[in-house]
């Protein structure tokens, strides 16, 4: 399970670094210097990624060619969007260091800190 998770991210790393669609064979070759992998293992994981909506594919002869549905940046933005949104609901999935704070409340925060730190030494307002 853990191993498959690693493989998923290794495959997505490769897919995101390529500009053109890739076949399972090409990804297998790309992964191989570092790992011993069977063709079917890679194919299974790529099918899973397709099922999860991370890869799309089009037929190419008897096989498929795959490419990411979103760029890494888009995917990261969506992931972090969920993380940040969960800061204000009260589910116990994640525990945040702090909530997102509206800009107009920031001066008060800074003041509270400065009061305690005494006259700002070296720091400017």
């Amino acid at each position, binding site marked *: 399970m853990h191993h498959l*998770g*690693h493989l*998923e*991210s290794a495959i*997505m790393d490769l897919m995101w670094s390529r500009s053109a669609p890739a076949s399972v064979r090409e990804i297998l070759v790309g992964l191989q210097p570092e790992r011993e992998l069977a063709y079917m293992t890679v194919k299974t994981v790529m099918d899973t990624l397709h099922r*999860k909506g*991370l890869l799309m594919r089009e037929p190419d002869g008897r096989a498929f060619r795959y490419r990411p549905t979103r760029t*890494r940046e888009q*995917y*990261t*933005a969506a*992931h*972090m969007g*969920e*993380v*940040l*949104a969960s*800061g*204000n609901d*009260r*589910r*116990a*999935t*994640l*525990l*945040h*260091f*702090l*909530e*997102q*704070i*509206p*800009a*107009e*409340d*920031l001066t*008060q*925060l*800074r003041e*509270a*800190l400065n*009061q*305690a*730190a005494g006259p700002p030494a070296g720091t400017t307002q």
Partner: protein
Amino acid sequence: MTTPVLLITFALLATLAGPLLKGRGWVDRSPRLGILVWQALTASIVVSVILASVSLALPVMPVLGGLADFLQACAMVLRAQYSTPGGAVVSMAGAVMAFVLGARVLYCLAIEVMSARRDRKEHIGSLSLVSRRDPTTDVLVVDHAVPTAYCLPGRRRDIVFTTAALRVLDEQQRQAVLRHELAHLHGHHHLVLIGANAWVRAFPRIPIFAMARVELGRLVELAADDRAAAGNDSRLTVASALVRLAEAGHAPASALAASGTATLVRVRRLAAPAAPLHRARVALTMVAATAMLALPVAVTATPALATVQAQTCPVEFPQSV
């Protein structure tokens, strides 16, 4: 009939105690104690209502017969002790209510545990695609422009920083944030929140449970701040990390911004710490919290004990006693 009346009165009084507890300064001075008291308070309300139903139901419960056999007499007296004016109907209603309440609490707890687990699993899936592990600190780093840090509790404990957070914090502040998140993980704060969520799910109309959830959410942050401050040495470092991250990543006015009040309380508290609570006061509060949980049980058991002691019911304990 006095037992259920006492228990319900106790539950009502405990419900009224919530708003009183909320405004108290000592809760913020000792957040861990505050967490304990809120948990004891909410649990004692639920326990006493369930026990009130149980005590109504006792006359029709087979367990009473067993108990009476064990006491070698007294079924009559015991029944009389727990008897209600409504007789069997009231007792049946009590039995049903005890069952429904107990089942509801367990069901809601299970739902909360499972949904948190499912969410986390999903989150880990996408996190592993967008993060890399920093080999020196062992934290996961996500390349993202909003500076933030969070932890994933549960079996796979992980702490996540965005690259923006690493950039705006200095080394000491990073360590402070790390200690804060570790405190969440070590303190099993997610379980505190899961419990609070389960009460709210089970009794959505009763405001004290929602209040407890808000307070517990706030108090686990204060408790983690205290741990991150490592005694008192780095209180200002934790505070400055909070302010730094808030400044660098403030939410656009319309977006998901909560009010900054909770964070302001944290910064003020870190910046100007109040003296810790006196030991005697801590001990006293712990006793009170324990009593809150023990009282409903004691009230429920009293008639049975009274029966044992009553002269009309000669009890012969086994010889070893």
